């Protein structure tokens, strides 16, 4: 198991390298002088030159990259002249709402989708199956920010049951915190729930057709246990991959949803920075989210090894 984990970690390095280089290049592919763009058309040449010096833009490109990479690895993501803060501090204060939203949405999605998919597989071909999968098709077709807007129209504007935007800190009351997050979480969760339900169903169907399920039935195992003990553990692997990937998708979907619902998270941070051309913040946020995304995939891979003994053996070269 350790060998397997070690191998996965090593495979991360080239990916992180490419991620780093790409993020770094964001500033440098801008047509024109980044410093001048950041300061705007009213800046004097002296101000621009001074900023160039502070940002180290006069050094050769590779030197800038090494310097940047070195600082990033130590946790220093730079300083934003617009926010008058270290970028890492800005990210820190904005990460909370985004994570809260993503986690809430993930819990919703999994809690609804996995049982739905399993049930659809158990009752394959019946009305239950077809209606669940019909919903799933709809879910995949509606982009989350659109769903968010529609939900606001129905539940906030038309019915007035829920707020149309804003965020409350959980410390100020769990009830309010949840009330403000329900609509955005549902909007985010819908597409992922659809994908997870579809994958759960197809994975279960695959497994239910296997010979070892026939064996279990021949042994006299009850239908319930056949599904939930024998089948689910085998079906879990692909389902887990989708769930893991979905968390990354949720975090990035949150970027746009936060604009719909005025949530002060990473999404708002990045989008406001685009308008201000605050490249340092954009780099920091994109890097952070990308790294989180990559780490999530790593965790999913490792969980794979835990759940399926064949993969552990195969990947560490035992069999």
């Amino acid at each position: 198991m350790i060998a397997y984990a070690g191998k996965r970690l090593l495979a991360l390095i080239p990916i992180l390298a490419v991620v780093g280089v790409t993020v770094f290049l964001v500033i440098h592919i801008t047509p024109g002088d980044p410093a001048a763009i950041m300061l705007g058309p009213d800046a004097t040449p002296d101000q621009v030159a001074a900023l160039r010096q502070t940002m180290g833009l006069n050094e050769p490109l590779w030197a800038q990259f090494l310097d940047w990479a070195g600082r990033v690895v130590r946790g220093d993501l730079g300083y934003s002249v617009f926010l008058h803060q270290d970028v890492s501090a800005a990210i820190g204060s904005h990460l909370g709402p985004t994570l809260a939203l993503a986690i809430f949405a993930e819990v919703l999605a999994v809690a609804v989708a996995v049982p739905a998919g399993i049930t659809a597989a158990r009752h394959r071909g019946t009305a239950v199956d077809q209606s669940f999968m019909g919903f799933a098709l709809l879910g995949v077709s509606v982009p989350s920010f659109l769903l968010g807007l529609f939900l606001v129209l129905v539940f906030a504007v038309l019915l007035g049951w829920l707020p149309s935007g804003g965020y409350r800190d959980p410390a100020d009351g769990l009830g309010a915190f949840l009330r403000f997050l329900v609509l955005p979480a549902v909007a985010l969760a819908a597409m992922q729930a659809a994908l997870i339900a579809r994958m759960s169903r197809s994975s279960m169907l695959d497994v239910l057709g296997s010979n070892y399920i026939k064996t279990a039935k021949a042994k006299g195992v009850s239908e319930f246990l056949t599904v939930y003990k024998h089948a689910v553990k085998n079906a879990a692997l692909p389902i887990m991959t989708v769930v893991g990937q979905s968390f990354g998708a949720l975090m990035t979907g949150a970027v746009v949803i936060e604009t719909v619902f005025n949530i002060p998270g990473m999404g708002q941070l990045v989008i406001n920075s685009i308008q201000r051309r605050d490249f340092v913040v954009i780099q920091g946020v994109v890097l952070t989210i990308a790294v989180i995304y990559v780490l999530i995939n790593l965790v999913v891979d490792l969980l794979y090894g835990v759940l399926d003994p064949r993969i552990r053996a195969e990947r560490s070269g035992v069999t």
Partner: protein
Amino acid sequence: MLLRVKELRTRFATDRGEVTAVDGVSFEVAPGEIVGLVGESGCGKSVTAESIMRLLDERSTRYSGEVLLDGVDLFGLTAEEMRQIRGGSVAMVFQDPMTSLNPVYTVGNQLEEAILLHQEVPREQARALAEQALAATGIPAPASCLRRYPHELSGGMRQRVMIAMALSCRPKLLIADEPTTALDVTTQAQILDLIAELRDGSNMGTILITHDMGVVAEVCTRVVVMYLGQVIEQASVDEIFTRPAHPYTRGLLASIPGLTGDTSAPLHVIGGKVPSLWEVPKGCRFADRCPFAEPACRDDAPELLPVDGDRSVRCRRHSELPEWAGVSHV
């Protein structure tokens, strides 16, 4: 009589209509017997076995007839009662050992599950019983085998595990569906020896499904030959090999390559192909491929009629067939 199958008919509902895979099959298994259920792929042997155990999806399958286990009709039981029977009184071993064990649970876990389902014993005793069951099938180091995952075992070992699992609750009837087909010849011989040993050691009745007449000759006491969903001949194993009555049985036996005789002559084949279940012939189902067929054979479907002693044949001309020259000869 341990098992009496009477006029078993199994029909599947498909997109193209209902198809009858098993059409009026009747046979018996006595305690201590190994009955070989023989036929080509697709003749309905596996479906018969799965029907006896009611393993098929009952939403799309229609059974009729009776399956009497010690006098109790299995088709009359509720789903829950049937579940008790499966693995307890009747156990089944499947064809492909490579995929018949759950890959994410250890062998021990799966064996203990089988035991705990049918016997009220504490966990530790279940483990001991599991170890005994494994030892009885000749697995070396059964205790450590319990801790292994299926993928760590060879095909032959996995099949022994399957047999151990089937026998762990001392079933009255064992159904083995082509248990050696997926194994190499050496392992096949070992598994057959094991089955023969088990027959000698207990009163368990066995149905051994196979398409290999060599296997039949080695372990079976009686033989039931099937073709396109019907039984076409039943006899003791000696009679089948010395005086086969049905032309199909003769064809099967003649196709076995022989060690003696003219080894340069081409192997005998039964000409033609098995008709599709969608187009079952009107008269005798074997008529198109039968070297002895007459026009009357194609018009009237023959019944399965008893011949001397315990034998029965489904052929109107069986008494008119020429002298049987022996296996590997036409």
